[in-house]
């Protein structure tokens, strides 16, 4: 018994005494403020092979925005934003914070990286993958601090998600807008080219003009046929009729007129049909450009709608609370676990030593 005493003293009594001292006297109350939020975004996340497998088990991951919000909260940027005017450092180095819990107790580790290490221990952000609800907890030594930091972090997370949104939205719309602008320019160019050709060639619409002229020609031909028939009749029955001269001149005139008109429609270099090719090309180009413009306009409209719909936003479910009771440190629990671990260590070491002592020279 006398031989075990020092061991028991070292493994059980000293640690438990230290634990009682720390948990009973030194440990500062830690207040924990909790908030919950969800990032809602209507677009479905892509699932990997295993994701599909696990879908059936009710496991689905949330959109990227959630991860963005989470990694921002745990980033050095967020810490810097919180630590404006040293607010964060002040909150965790106050005189009422015990030397064991405060940041930089020795005064030798005040670097930004040390602060970040400390910060990571104070802020916890967890995502429940089944419901995608993110729970954020902030530990601090006064309830007000805990709530204030939690609120600030929440606002920053919202800002991060919003930033991502606006970027995405702007990209979508900007792309569609450039499409529309291009199409507009093209359509204008085509219209200008068409109208300048009209002026230069003196045609409005060769197809229609040709039709009119062909109608005219057919009328003239009707008249010519009528005139010629009349002429034949007169020549047959009254060859001396003075009308014959008149009709003859008229028929010749009509025939000449018909040739002339037909020449205008086709054949000669100034005719409509020789112009129709170029006109048709310009006209088609103009029409095509118009159609493109219309479709670009439609897709711009769609992009705008999409952007309006694709809004991911942070939806607060639980506002940061003002804790009225310190949840940590769990004093009794700490002392008890120290006791149990100490006892186990004592039992093991004493058994090992007893086993050793059975070996003698």
């Amino acid at each position, binding site marked *: 018994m006398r*031989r075990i005493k020092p061991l028991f003293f070292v493994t059980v009594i000293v640690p438990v005494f230290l634990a009682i001292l720390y948990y009973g006297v030194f440990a500062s109350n830690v207040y924990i403020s909790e908030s919950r939020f969800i990032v809602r975004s209507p677009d479905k996340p892509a699932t990997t092979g295993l994701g599909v497998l696990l879908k059936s088990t009710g496991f689905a991951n949330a959109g990227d925005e959630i991860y963005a919000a989470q990694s921002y909260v745990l980033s050095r940027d967020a810490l810097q934003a919180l630590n404006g005017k040293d607010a964060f450092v002040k909150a965790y180095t106050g005189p009422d914070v015990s030397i064991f819990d405060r940041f930089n107790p020795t005064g030798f580790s005040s670097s930004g990286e040390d602060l970040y290490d400390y910060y990571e221990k104070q802020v916890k952000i967890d995502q429940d993958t*089944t419901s995608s609800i993110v729970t954020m907890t902030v530990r601090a030594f006064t309830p007000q601090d805990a709530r204030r930091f939690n609120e600030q972090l929440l606002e920053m997370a919202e800002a991060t998600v919003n930033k991502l949104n606006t970027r995405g939205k702007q990209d979508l719309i900007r792309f569609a807008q450039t499409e529309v602008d291009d199409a507009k320019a093209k359509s204008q160019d085509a219209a200008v080219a068409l109208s300048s050709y009209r002026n230069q060639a003196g045609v409005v619409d060769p197809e229609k003009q040709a039709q009119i002229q062909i109608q005219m020609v057919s009328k003239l031909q009707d008249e010519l046929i009528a005139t010629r028939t009349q002429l034949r009749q007169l020549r047959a029955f009254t060859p001396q009729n003075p009308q014959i001269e008149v009709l003859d001149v008229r028929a010749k005139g009509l025939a000449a007129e018909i040739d002339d008109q037909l020449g205008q429609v086709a054949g000669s270099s100034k005719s409509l049909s020789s112009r129709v090719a170029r006109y048709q090309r310009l006209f088609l180009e103009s029409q095509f450009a118009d159609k493109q413009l219309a479709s670009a306009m439609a897709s711009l409209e769609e992009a705008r709608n999409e952007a309006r719909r694709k809004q991911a936003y942070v939806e607060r479910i639980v506002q940061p609370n003002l804790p009225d009771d310190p949840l940590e440190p769990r004093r009794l629990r700490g002392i008890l676990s120290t006791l149990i671990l100490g006892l*186990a*260590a004592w*039992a093991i070491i004493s058994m090992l030593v007893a*086993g050793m*002592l059975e070996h*003698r020279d």
Partner: protein
Amino acid sequence: MRSHLAEVGRSASVQGRVVYALLMREILTRYGRHNIGFLWLFVEPMLFTTGVTVLWTLTQALHGSSLPIVAFALTGYSSVLLWRNMPARCIGAIDPNLALMYHRNVRAIDIFLARVLLEAGGATISFVTLSLFYIYIGWLDPPADILTVAGGWLMIAWFGAALGMTLGALSEKSEMVERLWHPISYLAFPLSGAAFMVDALPPAARKYILYVPMVNGVEIVRQGYFGEQVRVHYDFFYMLACCVGLTWLALSQIEVVNRGVTPE
């Protein structure tokens, strides 16, 4: 106090010599001096691990992450060998060595320690050698944090040693232990975290799988190996508590065996 410490020191050195002698004897009786002799100690696990690695690579096993399959198989299967071989060798370890128990200084715990050390050494050498070899031929990136790997490895080894000694001591009492260990060790393989990342499991299952102590160890090893590439889940204190509890159980059971062993 001083004299007592000196006594413990003397006894410890005696025990050290005994364990070393048993270890040497174990190597010789197990591997003999023919062909490559004691090199089999780690060539065997290396062949195992390489085989599994090649198989998994060929089948592109569904391991639930985008990690390189070689590193995944190496960390997973080596860990399995580490904790599975120790109980396998400890069960029924006393019987063949009963003759040695005539010596006052050869105790049950020495026999177990020798076998545990041998297995742990073999698995560790195999793991390290294979890692270096794979890194050399470019199948593997060097581990992100060797200390974390070593920590996780040590935890698994501790767990395996405690489990091995417990089962070894219990197997002296009843035949059942040996009969049951084979199916249990085979069934434990898929649960041990060797073939999956905890992060790939549904969150509901995650909670339960972490109650398996080896899983925590394997996750620590993987964190050390892959660093930032993976999200690992483990509860170090839970694993520590398991190891401490098992160690206590093992030592107390060995004590029982010590009383019961009667050299033939």
